[in-house]
């Protein structure tokens, strides 16, 4: 697996209403043959986001629809892996976080690294902090 998608990139690739949809979809389609996946946390984030009216407005999905969406995207010619990390979060990575929002970002960086992948993200802070462990999308 070469790439692990972060929550925002996974949603953007699937959801046409995301500002980065076009670029994220193109990027993911090109990246899939090299091997890709999402962490369990991102799988669940996608389901949560799809059911959240603050994100989807009138187009919110039911839990069943959201799960169908994620499972269908993980299928196809180049199936995606769902990574359940067996390791503890590492202090050396997480203590670099500035603010609570970066904790999950940096955890995903670790999950990617532990699985020999790079984290695909559009987040400037994550890209700046971990240039060797991330790739820019969008």
């Amino acid at each position, binding site marked *: 697996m070469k790439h692990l998608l972060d929550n925002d990139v996974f949603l953007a690739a699937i959801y*046409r209403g995301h500002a980065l949809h076009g670029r994220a979809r193109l990027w993911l389609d090109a990246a899939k043959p090299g091997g890709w996946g999402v962490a369990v946390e991102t799988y669940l984030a996608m389901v949560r986001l799809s059911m959240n009216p603050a994100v989807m407005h009138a187009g919110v999905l039911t839990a069943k629809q959201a799960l169908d969406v994620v499972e269908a995207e993980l299928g196809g010619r180049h199936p995606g892996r769902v990574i359940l990390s067996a390791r503890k979060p590492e202090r050396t990575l997480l203590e670099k976080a500035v603010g609570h929002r970066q904790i999950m970002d940096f955890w995903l960086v670790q999950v990617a690294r532990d699985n020999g992948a790079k984290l695909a993200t559009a987040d400037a802070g994550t890209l700046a902090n971990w240039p060797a462990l991330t790739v820019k999308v969008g």
Partner: protein
Amino acid sequence: MNGMKTTLDLPADVARSLRLESARRGGRKAASLTRLVSDAVRRVYTSPEATAKSRLDLTPGRVVVTPPRGTPKVSSENVRAALYD
């Protein structure tokens, strides 16, 4: 019916309009007060946005969820706020 039972205090002119409309449609059996009020509320207060749904293309490996027309775009910042706050 999974509805809400309630009491309405209608102005006289509205009550008269309902009676007339009910009579015009064939009486209470054909057009009950409940039915007339429900039809009117659906016509006036149900916006297209409230009934619209996302369209799902579940092609394996290339899923696209298309929001209803007029749905505001979501940014990466919106996503972060929804997940982490």
